[in-house]
């Protein structure tokens, strides 16, 4: 049990508008162990991004219990949530979400500046390490607008890992990238996982999902499947993805 990093028990999320009550997530229950690489898949609007928001404490559940690293975090203060996001969670977004006014080093340093226990030199050292890991150290003084999409996402990954979080949460990390850059980012996540990082990634791309070792399928706010991926399944997923892309490419050519 000591390996459990995240535990969700009967978590619900309901969005209320003036007239409509939308059940985005219903009775979600699963655990994530330390060092796991999980993909959450499902069609658009199924609730996977909402689930990731709950996992990342970017939103609060309507009901249910959420335990992170042994501590219940369902009903903690905003300040405590912010601290946990900063120290325990690293986010990678589809649209990179780098701050355009800050250069690469400053972007990576940003979450570290929210910690009071780090001095400037320590922060610089951590930024340097993170950028080296993603092979972007040479672009430290560039601004996001001077980088390609793939490079921006690598910087975003560096920002996510700079503070040594317990888990990386990635929301469609390759959604805005071409195949080559997407592959590079996924390779980077593989590498981080190999080094011991816990990763939870939301994706609807089977090829990206195939990189994970466990796959949770969400449909209409419910977990419909939660299984470990064996090699054969991974190959099938990758081939399916390749075929789909080939058909897509042919269609485009004709």
């Amino acid at each position: 049990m000591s390996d459990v990093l995240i535990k969700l028990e009967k978590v619900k999320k309901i969005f209320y508008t003036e007239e409509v009550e939308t059940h985005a997530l219903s009775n979600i229950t699963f655990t994530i162990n330390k060092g796991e690489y999980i993909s959450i898949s499902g069609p658009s609007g199924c609730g996977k991004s909402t689930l990731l928001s709950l996992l990342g404490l970017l939103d609060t559940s309507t009901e249910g219990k959420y335990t992170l690293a042994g501590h219940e975090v369902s009903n903690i203060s905003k300040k405590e949530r912010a601290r946990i996001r900063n120290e325990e969670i690293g986010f990678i977004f589809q649209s990179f979400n780098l701050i355009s006014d800050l250069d690469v080093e400053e972007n990576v340093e940003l979450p570290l500046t929210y910690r009071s226990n780090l001095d400037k030199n320590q922060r610089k050292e951590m930024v340097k390490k993170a950028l080296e890991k993603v092979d972007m150290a040479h672009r430290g003084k560039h601004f996001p607008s001077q980088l390609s999409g793939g490079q921006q996402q690598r910087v975003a990954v560096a920002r996510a890992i700079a503070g040594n979080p317990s888990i990386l949460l990635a929301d469609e990390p390759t959604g805005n990238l071409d195949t080559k850059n997407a592959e590079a980012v996924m390779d980077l996540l593989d590498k981080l996982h190999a080094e011991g990082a816990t990763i939870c990634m939301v994706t609807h791309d089977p090829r990206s999902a195939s990189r994970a070792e466990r796959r949770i399928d969400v449909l209409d706010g419910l977990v419909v499947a939660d299984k470990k991926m064996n090699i054969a399944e991974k190959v099938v997923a990758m081939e399916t993805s390749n075929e789909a892309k080939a058909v897509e490419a042919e269609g485009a050519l004709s």
Partner: protein
Amino acid sequence: MMVLSDLKYAIRLLSKSPGFTILTTIVMAAGIGLSIYLFSFFNTMVFKEMPFEDGDSLVQLSSSQNGVRNAGPINLHDYQEIRTNLKGLSEFGAYSVSNLNVSGRDGARRYSAVAAEPNIFQLTRTKPILGREFTKAENQAGAERVVVIGYDMWQNQFGGDPKIIDQTLRISGISHRIIGVMPAGYVFPTNTELWTPLREDATQLTRGNSGDVIGLAHIQDGVSMEELNRQLALVMQRIEQKYPKTNNGIGAYISTIPLAGDADTVAVIYSVHIIAILILILASVNVGNLLLSRAVERGKETAIRVALGAPRSRLISQMLWESIIICTVGGIVGLLVLAWGLEATQAITKTFFVDKPPFWWQFGIDAFTIKLFFIFVVGTILITGLLPAWKNSGADFNAVLRDGTRGALSKKSGRLNRFLIISQIFVSLTVLIAATVMMVGNFKATRADYGAKTENILTAAVLLTESKYDTPEKQAQFAKALQSRLENTVGIGDVMIASALPGSYTSTPALALEGREYTEDKGYPRANYIVVTPGSLAKLGVELKKGRYFNTSDEGLGKGSVIVTDSFVARHFPNESPIGKRIRTVELDGDQPNWLTIVGVVEHTIQGASYEESGKAPSVFRPFAQSPRTQMTVAMEMKLDSDKVIRTLRKTLESIDPELPAFRVEAYAESFTRHTGPMLFITSVFLLFGIAAIVLATSGIYGVMSNTINQRTQEIGVKRALGAVEQRITKEFLMSGVKQLLWGGIPGLLAGCGMGFAMSSMLGVGNADLLLVSLSLVLIIGGTVLMATYLPTKRALQMEPSQALRHE
């Protein structure tokens, strides 16, 4: 066709957001209306060409004293010297203003008149409709007395008699032959109703005996006013060196006729123009910002249009239509309100004058206003529309369509928003400081203590005919008789007679203090010089500080007593008692010094307007009987209603001399209103401007800041996702607000203080006032910036981070 469909589309979009449309239209109406009003107002007052042929080249030659351009007349000898030496002017002419009593069938009436050189009408390229102009011969002393009359007088007094020429008119007790009638509406140069020949020849008179005149001339092509004034300064310097006694500190200047009286306030007028432009920019930036945020909201729609092949020029023109509609409709509304405002101004400004305002003060929508309207509307369309249209049409449409680059505010947008906020802060602070300094100055002017009680007092001017009252004894006797008869009449209480009451302008001769040395006759101090009958100062409520008021023992031409104001004492006898000290007037004495002994000290009285040099100058009072005048002001305490008192006054005057009319009959308080009226009016206008500026500035800053923070909601989401706590983000945003406040505020403070300082001395606003005004406004703008940062940030922080990340 395309244009029509774009126009229809813009109308449809605007009608879908009526709140936005109404708000922006009102903002533009206020901006355009207010700014054109100020331009039009001052153009009519001081910049408009004279309404005559060659009116653009007609200039006035006036005197200045110690550098202060007070539109005063110049000595006839100086005028002749200038005429001989100044190059670049042609058709010199001169006139002196005089009030004349004209006797008719229904008694005597006072008319506004000028004694002028023969070319007075030629200068304005106007000929009499009947008869002729003066001849040179008629301009000589001893020539037959002739007069040219105005159209209104011809109509009213002579029933438009076509045989008016050669008829006789009795003016100030002397018969004049009418030789001409001027056209209807012709009142040049000063609402004139009668023109007589000047009859003064400098060659026949000594400097001391010659009168003063206002010079007129046409400026020659290619000659600048600056060049003429440089020449003139040299000429006047030479004259001063030659005649230091009479010309100490006396200068002259050339200006257009309307600007002659406002030559020194031109800095204030230009400052007002700058304020007007800044208010227009403020309004435009506000509307531009609102349009920009709409353009940002419609980014996706624009991207779709680009994807469908719309050229950029088409997109820009489509987006410009909204600005065109808002600015044009706003402008038209502003113009309509402006027309009403100018009409009201015409009515209000009439009350500033006893007689009539200057003849060129015709406020209304004229060619200049229309021209300005078009310029301002086009300018505001460009400011409000071009930026949002250009920015939105140049966005990365592919990225927008992909919805992939939503995230932190782009660097360019961030810069543009910062620029907008900084410019808003700069413009707001500049406008507000300048407008508030004006308001404070004007407010102070309306609150000034003139040193006399004004309640229930009726004043009237009386002008003695020089032919009949040709000796000081006769003049003194008349004043004494008038005062005593009025005081013994039922319905009239105290009666005061003076050459000028507090609040009125008077002469400021040079004075010499006994025992003081004045090297080469230079450095003589000047003071307002007023003659009063004994008891008048006490009855007027001018408080005695030391010594005594005048009494009957001071009466007599050979006597020399004087009362000075405490401001005179503070300036000249700061550490000693002035009682018993002697002073003398330099110019009035001639070669025989006539020492005057100070017998009393009274409180400072303001002569003229409080904010003018004359109002700040100390005063000296002489007994009327020691220095009698032909023109005097009678002040009467009313014990009955004013109509009865006026009738009593006229009857009393008639009983003494049937040829003497009372004119400028009004309540004493009214004459103060004439000084404070223009100031109150300008204060009201500036109050309106101040309110508009505050509303535009605070709402503008709030709008831009709020829009900027709204656009940065995702950035807030990102930062919170990365672990930033709310206080940290709030602090960060507030710091960025403070930074922008400093970037815009420091230059704004400097510019505002610069303008304020330029105006402060003119308006009587001290440095402490300026500092207080600046600090208060910095606090208001600073508070607005902080609130405008804090509230939207707080709103963004109320969202869950996940919501903020998805915010568009």
